[in-house]
C-alpha cells in the first residue's frame, strides 16, 4: 500500500531548529530562506515526495506540524 502525504507548518511559531529536516525520510522539508517575526528560518514543505509518515511532527518540540495522509 502506498501513501501520499502533506504537512502544514505553523510558521509563525516554528523556531527553525531543523530537527524535522534531519528526520524526514523523503527529503520533503527544508528551512526557508525567509524568517518569521521571531527571526527564525521556519520549516517548509518541498516537492511532492511526502508520505505523511509524521516523523517530522513527532520530533518537533514545538508541535507546529500537522500531518495529512491519504492512501493511493
Amino acid at each position, binding site marked *: 500500500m502506498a501513501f501520499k502525504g502533506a504537512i502544514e507548518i505553523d510558521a509563525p511559531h516554528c523556531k527553525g*531548529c*531543523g530537527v524535522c*529536516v534531519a*528526520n524526514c525520510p523523503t527529503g520533503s522539508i527544508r528551512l526557508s530562506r525567509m524568517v518569521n517575526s521571531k527571526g527564525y528560518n521556519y520549516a517548509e514543505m518541498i516537492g511532492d515526495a511526502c508520505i*505523511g509518515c509524521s516523523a*517530522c511532527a513527532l520530533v518537533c*518540540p514545538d508541535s507546529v506540524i500537522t500531518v*495529512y495522509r491519504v492512501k*493511493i
Partner: protein
Amino acid sequence: MDIAEIKRPENIVYRKPALITDNVMHYCPGCSHGTVHKLIAEVIDEMGIQESTIGISPVGCSVFAYNYIDIDWEEAAHGRAPALASATKRLCPDKHVFTYQGDGDLASIGTAEIIHACSRGENIVVIFINNGIYGMTGGQMAPTTLIGMKTSTTPYGRDPRLNGFPMVIADMISHLDGTAYITRQSVHTAAAVRKAKSAIRKAFEYSEKNIGLSFVEIVSTCNSGWKMSPVAANSWMVENMFKKYPIGDIKDVLK
C-alpha cells in the same frame, strides 16, 4: 493528487496534542523539553485522565511546564518535587501524580527526595530529563555531566579528580525495592519518540497498580548549553551520552 486535496481535515494523522496549550514554549529551538511535554500531554489525553492528573514542575528550564500542559500543577522548590508528589498521592490516592525534573533538580539538590520517594515505593511517575548540564542558569556542570565535557563551571572539561564522576541515577535507584519500572529513553528520532511515549504510558499505567514508583529517564540535549546546533546536539548525544546512559528498560517488576 495535489496537496490541497490531501490537506483535508479527515486526512489528519498527526496534530498538536489537545492538552498542549497555545502558549509559545520558552525553550530554545530544538530543545527536548517540548517533545517530552507533548508525549506526556498525549498520554494523559489518550488515557482520559486529565481530570485526575496533577503535575509537579521543578526548578530549571522546565519550571514553566505548567504553562504548556493543560492540567493542574504544583510548582516545587528545587529538587523537592518528589516530596510534594509523595504527599499529593498519599492524600489523593485516586489521582495520577507525576513529577517532571531535570538533572540539576533531581540528581543534585534533590537526591534525598528522589531516593526516598523511590525507597518508600510512592505510586507516582517521575519524568527525568537528563541533558548533562544546567540549562536555566546558563550551562553549568550537572552531576550527570560527562567526563571531559565542557560547561561554564568546567571550562576545561569535567575532570573527575576535581569534579567527581557522572551520576547514573536510573541504575542507582533500580536497586531500591520501591521502584516498579525504570527505563531510559530519548526523543531524537521518530522511532525514539514512539518508544518514549510507550514508556511514559506504561509508567502512568503502573502508577495505577500501586506497585511502586515508575521512572522514565529521557536522555536529552541542551544545544544552547552544549553550544551546538540542535541537529548536531542530537548526533553528539547518540555518540557520547548513550555510552554512559544506554537506552532501554532497566527494571520492570511485572516482567
